[in-house]
């Protein structure tokens, strides 16, 4: 029988790791993800898992050990945040290219400087072109569930790509809330054993990872990674349905909330979507056709589905918890591009909020919907909650 616990996003993720019992975890602590390897180290010390837990001297070494272990054929998990993620940057594309299905608990925290430990999405957004799947979770339950689901997605033979399971630093990672924990046996049966295609440790069929590929073949190998991402879009729903059969919870790529007949839709990711959904309910009572689209899968970006959902709206606002300094914020850029390709000239207001952990209040969402309804949409990026 599944059990209910009051737990945090980090602890729930660590609990999923205990149940998954990966072969190798290599990690280095950084706030706010520290709880994950810390809790997991307890499991290792108390003999609750068989994992080879590799403590290293930096994040760069942590992810390097992960890639190598995964290439060797192991099932591998780790976690990090912020500048720790940035220090791993060099190795992420190698993990993507080597097709190592690592599942990574990424607890979103802003990239310094200025140094700040709180949430925004600047750490993961900086890694959006690395050949990793990006899944963004709204709450602790989703972080727990997604850790388990992501193992099957990453190791799917048509995918074989690493996955970031993102949750909002502190807001989700340290907030305590009820989470339903599945039976150990159910998780074990769902994830099964990893069946690696070309494990380095298969000495009877030796392979070489990391060999040179100059101008003759580099391009082709990148093209294969693009195909793997396209395959994510094809196989994801199947994996999510299988997970639903075990858990009773289905997680779509795009979480649509009252968007079917909505005139005005706010697009958002992760924990702030709860606030937007509340405001949607409030405005619906006032007769305003508001809706919320939460983007859970950012890489690969489900552009066709996004266009279908937003295509009937009168105006759209996109909330980014990250910047592209000097350009369009990452989520807004994707949304505009998806709408352009489907030939819909829908006004899109790009908004940045919550940088460095700044709170996001219902009032911001309320005002935004009102502006959309009043046709106040401009090409200028807006900054919600900025002192100005």
């Amino acid at each position, binding site marked *: 029988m599944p059990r209910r616990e009051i737990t945090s996003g980090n602890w729930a993720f660590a609990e999923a790791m205990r149940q998954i019992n990966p072969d190798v975890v290599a990690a280095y602590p950084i706030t706010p993800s520290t709880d994950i390897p810390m809790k997991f180290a307890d499991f290792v010390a108390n003999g609750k898992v068989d994992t080879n837990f590799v403590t290293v001297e930096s994040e760069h070494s942590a992810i390097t050990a992960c890639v190598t272990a995964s290439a060797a054929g192991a099932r591998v998990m780790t976690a990090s945040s912020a500048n720790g993620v940035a220090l791993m940057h060099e190795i992420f594309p190698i993990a993507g290219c*080597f*097709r190592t299905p690592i599942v990574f608990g990424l607890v979103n925290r802003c990239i310094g400087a200025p140094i700040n430990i709180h949430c925004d999405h600047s750490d993961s957004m900086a890694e959006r072109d690395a050949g990793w799947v990006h899944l963004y979770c709204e709450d602790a339950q989703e972080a727990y569930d997604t850790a388990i689901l992501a193992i099957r997605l990453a190791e799917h033979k048509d995918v074989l790509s690493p996955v970031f399971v993102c949750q909002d630093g502190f807001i989700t990672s340290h907030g305590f809330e009820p989470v339903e924990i599945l039976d150990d046996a159910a998780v074990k049966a769902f994830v099964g054993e990893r069946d690696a*295609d070309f494990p380095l440790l298969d000495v009877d069929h030796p392979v070489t990872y990391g*060999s040179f590929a100059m101008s003759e*073949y580099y*391009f082709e190998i990148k093209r294969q990674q693009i*195909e793997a991402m396209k395959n994510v879009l094809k196989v994801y729903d199947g994996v999510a349905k299988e997970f639903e059969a075990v858990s009773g919870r289905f997680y779509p790529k795009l979480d649509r909330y009252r968007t079917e007949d909505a005139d005005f839709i706010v697009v958002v990711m992760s924990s702030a979507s709860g606030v937007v959904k509340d405001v949607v309910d409030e405005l619906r009572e006032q007769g305003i056709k508001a809706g919320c689209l939460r983007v859970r899968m950012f890489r690969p970006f489900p552009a066709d589905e996004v266009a279908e959902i937003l295509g009937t709206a009168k105006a759209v606002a996109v909330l980014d918890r990250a910047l592209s300094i000097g350009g369009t914020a990452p989520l807004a850029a994707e949304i505009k591009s998806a709408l352009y390709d489907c030939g819909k000239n829908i006004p899109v207001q790009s908004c940045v909020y919550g940088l460095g952990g700044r709170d996001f209040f219902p009032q911001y969402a309320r005002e935004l919907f009102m502006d959309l309804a009043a046709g106040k949409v401009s090409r200028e990026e807006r900054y919600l909650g900025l002192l100005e």
Partner: protein
Amino acid sequence: MTNRGNSAEMGKPKRWQDVPMGGIAFGSSAEAVETGQWRSMRPVWDGEKCISCLLCWNQCPDRSILTDGNGKVTGIDTFYCKGCGICAHICPKKAIEMRPESEFTGPGAGAKGE
């Protein structure tokens, strides 16, 4: 989408679908690489001093310490030896001496060496 086979036998892939996944090369070639060519210092073993404690054999990163199969050191295989000097450093009997490779291979080689 992936190609499994022997890189040497499969010929040049003509389409991206035929390139082995992730740039993996099938087979392994490290054994054929003479890393000894990278060496600038050569370990010279003295069978008179050696007590076959096997510390060097255990620590050599390039499995270059030769034994007779019965736990007796018989010499050093210079095919892989990169001249790191770990064996000389670790030897309790100072039975291994690191000497410049030029003594063995450069002009005038052999003058001071073997």
